[in-house]
């Protein structure tokens, strides 16, 4: 119990810093000061200057919001599409429908995601919203396949048949039961996907699509300031640490939340199985272990 709360606190603390920066940073950033030469240390900049001579502190303050917003939005959007598609494929008994849902997505899978983003973004030059949608789109096939695989077993359980016989709506069966059963796997995937999405946006920026390549955006900062890593490490290290904190914290929170929720099956063995081993020949003396009163088996 204590462990879980501890993890919750740790996760929350880890997430709090980047989130607070994302929320409040732009308010604190103030007006841009004069530029310095690129990658200088000190000189009125506590964290030095970046690749175009801007103050790293200010960039860090400004750079959280787009990262958090785009990454969260794109991940959420990807799952918004992938969940129904994947679950529908898992739940249907019509092979045709399943193929109809999944095979076109496979086509998208065959194009490396960076290339797809590069191509589509160059052709259609979408804005920030469009880019988030695009990044989400690139993630949909992958996520949908995963949802399908994770949900396939649960989708064929008698419980689903029973729900159907009750006339439950498709959504309730799919999200309420099948999705719920695969929750842990889905959350684990969403957590890593979040990180992937973040850098996809940054790499796209570097290749010249989506966000401006000098945008105040932590992921873009990590990417663009890397040339100066050995001259002025802060411009890379600080945003990188913030991103790590954000993704690690989010995942820790999810993990902790999952461990509390969800009843376990009653057949789950408790860790304290009291067993007395024979020390002598059968029927001989037995070493005793007493179950102390008032023990709790963990949830």
């Amino acid at each position, binding site marked *: 119990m204590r462990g879980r709360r501890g993890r919750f606190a740790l996760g929350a603390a880890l997430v709090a810093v980047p989130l607070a920066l994302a929320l409040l940073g732009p308010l604190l950033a103030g007006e841009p000061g004069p530029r310095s030469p*690129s*990658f200088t240390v000190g000189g009125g900049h506590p964290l030095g200057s970046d690749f175009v*001579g801007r103050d790293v502190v200010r960039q860090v303050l400004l750079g959280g919001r787009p990262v958090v917003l785009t990454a969260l939005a794109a991940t959420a959007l990807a799952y918004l599409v992938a969940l129904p598609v994947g679950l529908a494929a898992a739940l249907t008994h019509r092979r045709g429908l399943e193929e109809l849902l999944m095979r076109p997505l496979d086509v998208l899978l065959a194009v490396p995601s960076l290339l797809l983003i590069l191509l589509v973004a160059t052709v259609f030059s979408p804005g920030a919203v469009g880019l988030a949608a695009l990044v989400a789109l690139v993630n949909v096939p992958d996520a949908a396949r995963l949802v399908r695989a994770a949900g396939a077993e649960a989708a064929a359980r008698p419980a689903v048949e029973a729900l159907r016989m009750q006339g439950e709506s498709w959504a309730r069966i799919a999200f309420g039961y099948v999705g719920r059963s695969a929750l842990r796997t889905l959350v684990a995937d969403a957590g890593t996907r979040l990180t992937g999405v973040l850098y996809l946006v940054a790499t796209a920026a570097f290749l*010249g699509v989506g966000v*401006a390549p000098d945008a105040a955006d932590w992921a873009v900062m990590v990417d663009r300031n890397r040339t*100066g890593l050995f*001259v002025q490490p802060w411009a890379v290290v600080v945003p990188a640490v913030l991103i790590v904190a954000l993704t690690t914290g989010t995942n820790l929170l999810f993990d902790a939340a999952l461990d509390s929720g969800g009843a376990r099956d009653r057949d789950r063995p408790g860790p304290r199985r009291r067993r007395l081993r024979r020390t002598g020949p059968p029927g001989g003396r037995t070493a005793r272990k007493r179950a102390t009163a008032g023990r709790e088996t963990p949830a």
Partner: protein
Amino acid sequence: GTGTDADAEAGGGSAPKRGGRLRAAFAGGGASETLDPHLANLFADVARAKALFDKLADYGADLSAQPRLASAWEPNAALDRWHVTLREADFHDGRPVTAEDVLYSYRRIADPDKAFRAKASLEPIDLAASRATGARSLEFVLKRPTAEFPNVLASFGAYIVPEGAGDFDRKPVGSGPFRFVSFAPGRSAVLRRNDAYWDGAPHLDELEFVVANEESARVNALLGGQVEYAHELNPTTARAHEDGGRISIVRLRNSAMQAFCMKTDRPPFDDARVRQAFFLIADRQELVDGALAGAGVIGNDLFGKGYEYYAGTLPQRTRDLDRARALLKEAGAEKLKVTLDTSAVAAGFTEAAAVFRDQAREAGVTVEIRMGSKDSYWSDILDSGTLCCYRSGAMPIEAHLSQRLLTDSTTNATGWRHADFDALYRQAQSTRDRAERGAVYERMQRRLHTEGGFLVWGFADWIVGTARSVRGVDAKAPANTLDWARFDKVWLA
């Protein structure tokens, strides 16, 4: 030019040593690379081409033409017929370089079905009328007087190949300092010393070009001893290693002009006052510091700093926001909004755009940055948009003028079309006397300085890293000139 380490040591007088293998890392063109010298496009192509082939002439450090395979050239009085004598040189297969080879090479370049890059440069030559006057002498007939004809002979990509050569993938034969050994497109090219080279055999036994597109990979390979020469390093990398002692950094000054290009034929830049205002908005030092990480010098809105005929006497323009605002007001362009096209096509472009955007804001001008596709950037900016980032490698000032600033120039990105300006150019080309010609060029440059379309804010260094053992790397030659990437003069200590 302050001498760098390598420079000092090279000049330090230690005698060149023969032997060894030098591996040079360049950014390359991937699996589509070829050894066809006429297709040379990237630095890697050019470096390979100049190791295998020769041109009739090449550019010196001040971009004046230096004789190479041509030992002498002599024009007629009207400057429209040039007599060129070839020096005694042999191709790698032992055949001598003849006038026929030259004519074949030039005709190949000018083939209307192909579109070799040097074709535009050779345009002044009437190849049908030109002819060999002997085994090693020939007469070029020109379409119009061209005082700067030797520049044509030195132009980018105008390499001399043996007559009939067409397939350069298998075993290219040239007259250059190195012979072909092997080639894997996008990976490496191995060459061996040509002992019979007319300009003296190279010191190196073997030369290998390897391709590494990522700058950090080139640096790492250099630091890890996997290559001895790494072309095109970041200023930041240079800063980190300049006094680190593990490698030597060579800065090739004035290698690339950095500019913003204003379209003078359309609003708002059709008004000279707006152009002048923009000249005054730019804080050049900040641009050099921010976009080039300090690796360069500021520009004065003119191409070719330090080159032959450069109008160095014109006063350096400095930032003056008040005058800029006044000029804009005069032109009725207060609260001006312009779109600045940029792309990741060249180092520093996007950075320069961002820096300039901030500078313009201080003058009340809103600059909106538009990122373009880097693959089609150059052709996109040629006709569309009003303001864009621009860059140019080293070339003679004359070539810059003729290719970019005449009414019929093929890449007139500033839309600079003025009959009187064209006339000045023609006048220069028919002026035999060098000093007189210089005066005409200065008049032209003065005009460009006051109201031209190029806001030239800086000249970038080209940075080369070498292992400490590498000697003889010329530190004064801008990229693309004769002494740049000239591996026949390099040796390993």
